[in-house]
């Protein structure tokens, strides 16, 4: 029984939160990696672009709520996401047209493009804050829990409760569907394959008649979908605050690089690597050991490797270590 309690404890406090957080990071990391692989620059506006998509989602959610439309147990935001994606794609394509295109056609060095993306970051941040303001917003509605901790305890008779939020299930489910669709697209369709070729070797791809304009456009469209859904899922699960989104850019970058930048599958796994290690290293294992060890050996301290204050620092340290020993990432980068 104690072993079961211990397992439930880990599930509840480590596995499920990490899986959710990892999925949210993974979507962002694939976004970063796609831009890096095809447009060849580190996009510092990542977090703020996700904030923009989430903001549009929230605005549509409010609109639908005012009309009285809802999805019952599911959050209304799900209905708003498709509309938000359209806005997001338009926003990204116009940014590309007015800003990035000039540098791409001039074959500017990646550093310059990264600098330009900082300009885009400032502008996007301003737009988001001017439209919706900097404060914390919750836009979740519908049924909050699938399993409540107390119900679970009553059902199983265990000491430890297992709470399962509907946003957690939703996040993982949507991520899996979206990522499988993306990989199917990249690996099986002609356009996807040409994207891979373009990322692999631009000149060769151009020689074999691939249209770069189309590739760039499709990249931004996929990026828009990923950014909106990733941002909206994060906002549904936690809350929407522009500053948090800007900060999330850092673990997202870490995930993309750990997985090997330019490699979508690596980025996908990188998200989970970062999320799990953050939570593993900062969780206090005292209660866990109380369950599995005999009473005489129970630990007195919290058995916490690092205090939770260092959550971000953990992922960045992993990144620095990976950069030093395997700059191309755990899964070799640059093979889209």
């Amino acid at each position, binding site marked *: 029984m104690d072993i079961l309690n211990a397992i439930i404890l880990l599930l509840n406090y480590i596995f499920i939160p990490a899986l959710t957080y990892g999925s949210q990071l993974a979507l962002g990391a694939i976004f970063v990696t796609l831009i890096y692989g095809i447009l060849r620059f580190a996009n510092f506006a990542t977090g703020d672009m996700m904030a923009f998509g989430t903001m549009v989602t929230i605005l549509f959610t409010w609109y639908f709520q005012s009309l009285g439309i809802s999805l019952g147990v599911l959050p209304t935001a799900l209905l708003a996401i498709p509309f938000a994606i359209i806005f997001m794609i338009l926003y990204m394509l116009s940014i590309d047209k007015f800003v990035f295109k000039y540098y791409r056609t001039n074959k500017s060095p990646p550093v*310059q493009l990264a600098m330009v993306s900082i300009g885009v970051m400032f502008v996007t941040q301003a737009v988001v804050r*001017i439209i919706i303001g900097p404060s914390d917003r919750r836009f979740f509605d519908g049924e909050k829990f699938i399993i409540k901790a107390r119900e679970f305890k009553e059902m199983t008779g265990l000491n430890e409760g297992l709470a399962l939020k509907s946003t957690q299930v939703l996040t993982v489910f949507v991520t899996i569907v979206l990522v499988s669709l993306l990989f199917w697209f990249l690996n099986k369709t002609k356009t996807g394959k040409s994207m891979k070729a373009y990322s692999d070797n631009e000149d060769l791809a151009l020689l074999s008649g691939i249209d770069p304009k189309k590739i760039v456009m499709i990249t931004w469209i996929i990026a828009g979908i990923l950014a909106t859904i990733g941002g909206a899922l994060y906002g549904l699960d936690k809350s929407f605050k522009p500053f948090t989104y800007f900060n999330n850019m850092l673990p997202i970058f870490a995930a993309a690089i750990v997985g090997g930048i330019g490699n979508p599958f690596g980025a996908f796994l990188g998200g989970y690597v970062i999320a799990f290690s953050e939570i593993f290293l900062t969780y206090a294992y005292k209660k866990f050991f109380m369950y599995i060890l005999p009473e005489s050996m129970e630990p007195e301290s919290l058995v916490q490797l690092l205090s939770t204050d260092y959550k971000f620092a953990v992922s960045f340290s992993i990144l*620095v270590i990976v950069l030093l020993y395997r700059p191309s990432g755990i899964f070799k980068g640059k093979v889209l």
Partner: protein
Amino acid sequence: MKKNLNVIAAYSIMMVLILLVGIFQSWNVALSIFNLCLISAVMTMGANIQWGYAGLINFGIMGYTALGGLAAVLISVDPVQEAWRAGGFDILMGLWLVIVMILVIRFVLKRFEKSKIRTYSIAAIIISGILLIRFSMEPGIEAIEAVDPAKTGFLGGFGLPIIFSWIVGALFAGGLAFVIGKVALGLRADYLAIATLLISEIVIAIIKHEDWLTRGVKNVIGLKRPAPYEVDLQTTDWFINLVEKFNSGKLDLISNLSDRQAALNQFVIEGSSVFVKLCYSGLFLIVVIILLILTQKALYSPWGRMMRAIRDNEEAANAMGKNVVKQHLLIFVLGSAIVGIAGAMLVTQDGLFTPGSYRPMRYTFLIWVMVIVGGSGNNFGAILGGFVVWFLWIESAPIALFLINFFTVGIPESNTLKAHLIQSVPYFRFLMMGLGLLLIMRYRPKGILPEKIEIK
């Protein structure tokens, strides 16, 4: 003279703008903008050395600024005797263990050939070392943080004049840059940018959460000043006489004696804060001028030529026998040390250290906007960038308010859209910075004052 006309013109316009703020808003505001412009100028000089001279991208400016600020705290605050008695020994033990760990790692690196076993054993040493240090320091840290937590709860500093911290801040920042440079400078440009950005976040996390050293988010307030205090000035005779002399024209107009005294008091109160700010301006100006002379000399020296050669063609410079790695490390350390000075100056001016206020937006990306807008590779350009961008950063809210009112003049105040726009005026500064950066990068990619290399 003619060649430098654009430099002189740009600086004159900038000065006129600050004077206009002084005349129309207040001299206090103008001087505080001017002081922060000077501090920003020091930061941009540091970033400019790295980016403009050597083409190294450093997104860790925030980290060095914070370390400079930490130096100001550690130098100027009086030591907390009680805390030292409570946990000083444990902390010293911990530091000793850190040194031992570093020595052991160095020994392993020197003694054994590069191999998988060596890598793993170093990792093992680091992990076990960190655990050991944590457990040995834990009781000391707890004891220190328990000492009067509302007021101290940290070890304090050395109780020296805060001016010294400007040098120590440079040493701290340079030391950190040396470590980072050793491990990260081999990375490609954009990886280096991301790595430095993340490392600076780690530095901030440590400063925020190691309360025994920095008081963390509880902030350190009331730091010593290199300038006199306003309250003291208001009761000193020579200062009152000075203010009286300065404002004699206005004071003579008032015939009533008690009214005259009240007016004089008002002038003294205003004058004292202006005077204090002027003291800071003088100190900062000295630093900026010294740094400017040194950086200009360096730029036109053989060393500066070599740096440009490395920046423009690394392989060719390498083939000419220049030690690219060593020079990169050197310039990384130098630039970061200058940023460290700026960090200490900033805390000196504010008189308080707030680890929570260090955010990448303000301390990394804004500085980069300054460098790019001003003109990378040109020291005068970098300083100008610091002035222009900081001026706009502060004044963008009034400007935006004016523009909104101007364009919506026919719309009543109660209109929701207008009210919303006026409410979000502070965020127009981001818009202005972003658009400024994008426009400069597109139409004047070398900045307002581009790099100009004269061959003498």
